[in-house]
């Protein structure tokens, strides 16, 4: 339990998100207060990866549909109207989530908390809410870029 609480997750996640957005999307992100009201204009996409091993965890990346389209266009080097449907958007959000989760996994392993990373999954909906239960630590970090916000949630507990 104390191992989990001593982790500087803020630094891990902030560095990972900045690096991924800068390298893959050429987008600068700024940290913003988490938990502020978000307007997803009806479309809400959540990418999720799970960690399992000495530590158990979930990482969720929340973005609105419009920001997801901007991200997809930037990642694939195309215009937004060239995006070939939601499958392409989900793949990009899943891959971003995999990269942020992969970086977190590496940091955890460096602390001796060895674990495996799942392949990403995607949840979409309108006004959806994910209610975590039974975790030892829960953190939430907000980021803004191009007048949009993204939110990263991390849930953790000690595994076997």
């Amino acid at each position, binding site marked *: 339990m104390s191992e989990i609480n001593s982790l500087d997750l803020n630094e891990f996640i902030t560095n990972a998100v900045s690096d991924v957005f800068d390298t893959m999307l050429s987008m600068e992100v700024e940290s913003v207060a988490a938990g502020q009201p978000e307007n997803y204009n009806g479309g809400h996409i959540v990418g999720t990866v799970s960690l399992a091993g000495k530590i158990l965890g979930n990482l969720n990346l929340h973005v609105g549909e419009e920001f997801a389209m901007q991200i997809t266009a930037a990642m694939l080097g195309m215009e937004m109207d060239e995006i070939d449907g939601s499958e392409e958007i989900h793949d990009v959000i899943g891959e971003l989530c995999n990269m942020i989760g*992969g970086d977190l996994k*590496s940091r955890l392993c460096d602390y001796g908390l060895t674990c495996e*990373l799942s392949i990403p999954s995607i949840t979409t909906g309108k006004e959806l809410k994910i209610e975590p239960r039974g975790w030892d630590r829960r953190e939430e970090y907000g980021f803004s870029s191009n007048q949009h916000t993204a939110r990263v949630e991390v849930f953790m507990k000690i595994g076997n």
Partner: protein
Amino acid sequence: MALKVLTVDDSKTIRMIVKKAFKNYDCEMFEAENGVEGLATAAKVKPGLIVLDITMPVMNGIEMLGKLKEEPGLKDIPVIMLTAESGKDNVMQIVKMGVKDYMVKPFKGQDLIERVEKIMQLAPKPDEDEAENRANRYFSQVEDVAVLALPSKVTRPVTVEVESDLQAKLKEMAEAKMNKLVLDLCKVAETNVLLIKLIISTLQRCQTAKIAIRVVASAKQGEELKSFQETSDIPVVNTLAEAQTAL
């Protein structure tokens, strides 16, 4: 010959990024979504390079790499691993498996190219327009007839180019089921031995390829051709329209 590059990644996004990274190079790209498909594609196309993700469903990259190394015909293919995990243990595991290099995600396409160029030379992609223009510098098409128009001066380099282009053109015509060709000498300013040899070789090649051919030349050129023993019997017409009718 183009380098065959196989990208094995469950993410279409990453496969597209890899494909774009190689777009300026003479490469033929192949894709697979997991290790099982990757092994099958590798066995089929025998790529010169594999870009392999680690975390994939069905069969992950580590397992695919292990199986690849067990196959005598595939074990020497250079592999660059892609991983979202930069932790020491992960990197050590990859290095021990005998990969040529690895890339930690996130990465830019140019970073991947730099890694590849450390292990092999990438040839720039040939300019398709330039290649097409070069192929068509002597040839044009009038309805169902291919026209080979020789330039004003027929030199040795010109004969080499024409013979090379003619070989490709005859193959193209055979595939397109075209069988009519006109050899247009109207622009040729001087009748020399090289021209005579080129006319003869063109006629022979067309005969072999079962292509009907007519020579278009001015009246003066027609007379000059008659003065050479090798071309004295060749029927000559004076206009393209006459040649089309004769064909």
